[in-house]
């Protein structure tokens, strides 16, 4: 074996080992300004690779104007949009600050963020609380209903979850996800089981630390009525698992996949924190009544961190129900998605298995070499936002990561190991 191949093999073995040995625990919910001390007034973290106002899509613009009003940086949406166009806001990717966010994925000073600690490596990752379905900020919603919900998350749910989580040792996520997979979740477009398991784990502490029964009732109703509540926890978990895998010299493993509604970006362990980007693709899926493909915005969000750790589209075989929801076909076709992703990954996760596939471990560790060689790009399960600001979610579907990202990454990776 040539020397560079040995380096790559050893580096990838180490990368996969770090992924599989991660021990993510949900430990707290705190204001973003406490979690990410670099955050400042008028600084907005967003989903995906770097982008400026001029390149942003409709729902991203809608969410930004909404968050500017929420943070008190503008009196209304119109002024907020003018400020944004005049360069008043400072935009950065969540990924540059240990954070992730679904769809538009905005993170700003006063939003509460969930804290997931990877106890094997000691790093922490952050993600805002899930707002529920329909007209919400992550899908570009920005009216009073959306902003009032964000205030409730900040003033009621966030502090209550913080008290509950701090009263114990946190919620261990690895085992919770393992159970969720056996109950039909894939942790991207289906989180029914894990949301329920999380509520079950937190309820006693939420009750014992609460002094306001009406607020407690609202909290239990909100979490219990939100099938996607766990998505944001899964995302922070994904980020906490992947960050220790960054920067391993010679590793061709993908450490992040993310989209800002305009571009899709990936990062590779052996090439450090460089983004490899290409225009994002349009999901194929099913639409809510009254909406069609003509209403859809291209793919968006940091939620592809879930696929990066072997869940979501990679674990479709665990969740045949979601295959129907996202328009991906039958139960047997769902299994094919998982098996196909096995062709572009370095291994399987022995702790996250799929009973219906004879306890096959979810495909884990995307290798850019295998993606380019096979021509099989990662399958992503995703929500679909309306292309206009302020409307919200219009459907759900499946989308592929653009092959151009992986081809660019392969050239840079080859250079990094001295191959041309």
């Amino acid at each position, binding site marked *: 074996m*040539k020397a560079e*191949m040995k380096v*790559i093999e050893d580096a990838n073995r180490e990368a996969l080992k770090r992924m599989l040995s991660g021990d993510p625990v949900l430990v707290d919910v705190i204001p973003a300004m406490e979690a990410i001390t670099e955050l400042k007034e008028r600084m907005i973290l967003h989903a995906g690779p770097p982008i400026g106002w001029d390149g942003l899509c409709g729902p991203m613009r809608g969410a930004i104007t909404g968050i500017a009003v929420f943070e008190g940086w503008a009196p209304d949406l119109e002024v907020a949009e003018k400020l944004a166009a005049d360069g008043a806001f400072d935009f950065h990717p969540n990924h540059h600050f240990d954070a992730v966010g679904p769809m538009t994925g905005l993170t700003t000073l006063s939003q509460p963020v969930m804290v997931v600690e990877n106890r094997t490596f000691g790093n922490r990752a952050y993600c805002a609380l899930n707002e529920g379905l329909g007209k919400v900020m992550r899908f570009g919603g920005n009216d009073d209903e959306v902003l009032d919900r964000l205030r409730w998350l900040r003033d009621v749910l966030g502090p209550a979850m913080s008290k509950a989580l701090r009263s114990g040792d946190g919620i261990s996520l690895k085992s919770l996800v393992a159970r969720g997979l056996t109950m039909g979740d894939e942790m991207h477009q289906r989180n029914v089981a894990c949301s329920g398991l999380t509520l079950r784990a937190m309820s006693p502490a939420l009750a014992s630390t609460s002094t306001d029964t009406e607020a407690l009732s609202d909290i239990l109703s909100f979490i219990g009525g939100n099938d996607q509540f766990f998505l944001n926890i899964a995302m922070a978990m994904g980020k906490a698992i992947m960050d220790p895998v960054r920067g391993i010299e010679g590793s061709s493993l993908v450490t992040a996949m993310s989209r800002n509604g305009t571009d899709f970006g990936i990062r590779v362990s052996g090439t450090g924190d460089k983004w490899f980007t290409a225009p994002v693709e349009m999901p194929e899926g099913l639409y809510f009544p009254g909406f069609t493909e003509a209403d859809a915005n291209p793919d968006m969000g940091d939620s592809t961190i879930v696929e990066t750790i072997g869940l979501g589209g990679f674990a479709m075989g665990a969740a045949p129900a979601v295959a129907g929801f996202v328009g991906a076909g039958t139960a047997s076709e769902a299994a094919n998605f998982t098996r196909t992703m096995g062709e572009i990954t370095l291994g399987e996760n022995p702790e996250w298995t799929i009973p219906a596939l004879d306890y096959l471990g979810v495909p884990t560790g995307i290798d850019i*070499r295998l993606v380019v060689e*096979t021509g099989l790009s990662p399958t992503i399960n995703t929500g679909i936002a309306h292309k206009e600001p302020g409307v919200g979610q219009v459907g759900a579907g499946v989308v592929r990561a653009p092959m151009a990202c992986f081809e660019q990454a*392969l050239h840079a990776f*080859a250079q990094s190991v001295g191959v041309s």
Partner: protein
Amino acid sequence: MSESKVKTLLEEPLRVVNIGLEGFAKELDQQGVKVIQVDWTPPAGGDTKLANLLSKLGT
């Protein structure tokens, strides 16, 4: 291949393994020929530069 083997091949029902382009398999299937389709594409979709790079990177 010996003459007898060729004769046997032509006299017995065809059993085909088709690698790559699915259209050939579909045509045979429509004519009642037993065919197994194997999904295959050239490495890197036939891009020789990328395929050359991949061969040096150990896939």
